[in-house]
């Protein structure tokens, strides 16, 4: 199974993503330069962290117009899994593929820390390997990771169970002290209504091995692989029935 890792000028977690993906049996990651126009042959798409286009204008504002983004959008519409971590999340919001926006941290500082993120759903294609309420220990490293959405969008996110992760303390409580950046309702990661696009500020790519302090990030890539396997098995069966 092959995952694409998009490289924008200024991406800097692309290698982390490739290492995390290649660390899982049966998965292979491949770089795709942002000037490419097709993602055919890839089973999933990763938008890595970094500073695409130097974060000029706004984080992700220019990257969203890179040629590859048309392929990301059309493949996402067709149901392909798309994961955006950190800067990748910012790009997805700017592209309108995820609701809301990421603004400057409330804390007046760049945060570089290990956080606990509580899983809010148990049926996400990206996290179904972990039960609802469980905590993922993942690193964050960002200056503009404060998730903002207006009241109506927030209501929709909650009503449709699109909030996948919230920052929590070590007991799993959603408290202001556990919020590293001022995100509204401690939101750390959300998906689209169709549930196949997932963006989060923490870095699963930097937590793919216990030697890095946590292997919880690998659970996300593993869940993606399992979802894709299950989906292709289902469509195979459907073909046989037809």
């Amino acid at each position, binding site marked *: 199974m092959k995952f694409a890792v998009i490289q924008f000028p200024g991406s800097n977690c692309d290698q982390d993503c490739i290492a995390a993906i290649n660390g899982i049996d049966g998965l292979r990651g491949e770089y795709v330069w942002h000037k490419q126009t097709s993602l055919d042959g890839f089973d999933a798409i990763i938008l890595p962290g970094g500073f695409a286009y130097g974060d000029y204008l706004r984080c992700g504002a*220019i990257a969203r117009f890179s040629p590859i983004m048309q392929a*990301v959008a059309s493949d996402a519409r067709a149901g392909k899994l798309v994961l955006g971590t950190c800067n990748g999340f910012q790009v997805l919001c*700017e592209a309108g593929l995820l609701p*809301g926006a990421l603004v400057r941290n409330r804390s007046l500082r760049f945060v570089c820390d290990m956080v606990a993120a509580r899983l809010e759903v148990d049926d996400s294609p990206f996290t179904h390997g972990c039960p609802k309420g469980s905590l993922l220990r993942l690193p964050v490293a960002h200056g503009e990771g404060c998730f903002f959405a207006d009241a109506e*969008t927030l209501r929709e996110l909650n009503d449709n169970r699109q909030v996948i992760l919230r920052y929590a303390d070590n007991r799993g409580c959603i408290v202001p002290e556990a919020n590293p950046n001022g995100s509204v309702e401690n939101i750390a990661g959300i998906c689209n209504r169709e549930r196949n696009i997932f963006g989060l500020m923490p870095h699963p790519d930097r937590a793919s091995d216990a030697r890095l302090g946590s292997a919880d990030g690998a659970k996300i890539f593993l869940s993606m692989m399992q979802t894709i396997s299950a989906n292709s098995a289902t469509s195979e069966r459907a073909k046989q029935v037809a």
Partner: protein
Amino acid sequence: MKVKVLVMPKAAVLDPQGNAVRDAMRHLGMPEVRNVRIGKYMEIEVDGENGELESRLHGLCRDLLSNPVIEDYELQKAEVPPGSGVADTGQKSEVRRQRSEGRGQRSQVQ
């Protein structure tokens, strides 16, 4: 034509940068400062001048120069006096304000 684009965070969006500058101004001896909001100011030179160009500029203000989820923009068309050869005098300028109401107005990546 020369246009100026002003992009400001929406009132509902927290502006920690503005707050930090406000606090610094108070610290530097101006306790009267009530609020500071920080946005972006852009000067854009465009070849030609017509309504169609302007409406395309508005499109780019929504799609690229601002993010309607968190920002409002203001496009000011500065008229260059004939023969002046340099930037506008600032005396005659037409202000077109656009309050983008959240979502839906921006074109998505196709």
